[in-house]
């Protein structure tokens, strides 16, 4: 039973998380957006979506670029 539950958990986790740092970064971006929308005024809340968008763009580009750089470094070390 625990094996089956473990398999269900692994599959569900695998659907959402491929790279831990990317997933963690996304959750932090979502939390920051939620917090800013809660504590900011009306104008800030209305524009919170753009803040999330910019954070996601930065996160995606930085994470993918880092993955590419690490392949590049490992090639250069060989």
């Amino acid at each position: 039973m625990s094996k089956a539950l473990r398999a269900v958990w692994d599959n569900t986790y695998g659907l959402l998380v491929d790279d831990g740092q990317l997933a963690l970064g996304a959750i932090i971006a979502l939390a920051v957006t939620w917090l800013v929308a809660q504590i900011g005024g009306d104008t800030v809340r209305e524009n919170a979506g753009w803040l999330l968008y910019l954070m996601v763009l930065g996160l995606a580009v930085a994470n993918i670029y880092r993955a590419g750089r690490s392949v590049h470094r490992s090639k250069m070390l060989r």
Partner: protein
Amino acid sequence: MDLVTLAIAATPSFIASAVEFVEATTIVLAVGLTRGWRAPLAGSALAALTLAAIIATLGVALVTVIPERFLLGLVGTLLLLFGLRWLRKAVLRFAGIVALHNEEEIYRREVAELRAQGLKKTEWDWVGTVVAYKAVLLEGIEVAFIVISFGAKGMTALNAAIWGAVAAGVMVIGLASALRQPLTAVPENLLKFVVGAMLTTFGVFWFGEGVGAEWPGDAASIPFILGGLLLACWLTVRLLRGILPEGARVEARNV
């Protein structure tokens, strides 16, 4: 809802689901053509029933019971995690860092593994049933997830998403049945790139709505969010191709 509006609303779900159906169909075809059709069809039918139960309970409960704002936040979160995962993999594939998804190669590997397992004519083929069940269920869960995510805005959106997924399923299964070979002509890597960007876009849009953000022109801002994301990813692919030594790219493609 008229047919044109339904077709537009169903398109994201149709494209995203088609990719998943192609992957599941490859495995079911491999089982069917090597071990006979009864076991994989039974496995696929069982998986379809399991999926119908998941969508009927979770999907309808999510859309009808949970308050809209909370639901948009929850679905936005899941879509963003799901979409970024697809997008990352797709960009790394296009940059030559991760091997491209090759349906023909997967089909050949699956056929070889299934042949190696052997088959006794007198017994029910449990291997074939389980392999087909797992493939259809796993890819189907992704389809269910896509349907629930695109349909999170309410019953109209949910209906459109269901129609999109059903149309994709009928088209892919119909084509595979007619051709009796994996659908290698489907530009799966490109579709995954677009779908990853689309899921991420909807994730940003809906989470923003969930926290009370206002998008200029409401849903009309979605193409701009998507366009910016695709442009950023395309630039990243170009940048990565520039820094990677040629040898690394060739080696990665042959993984």
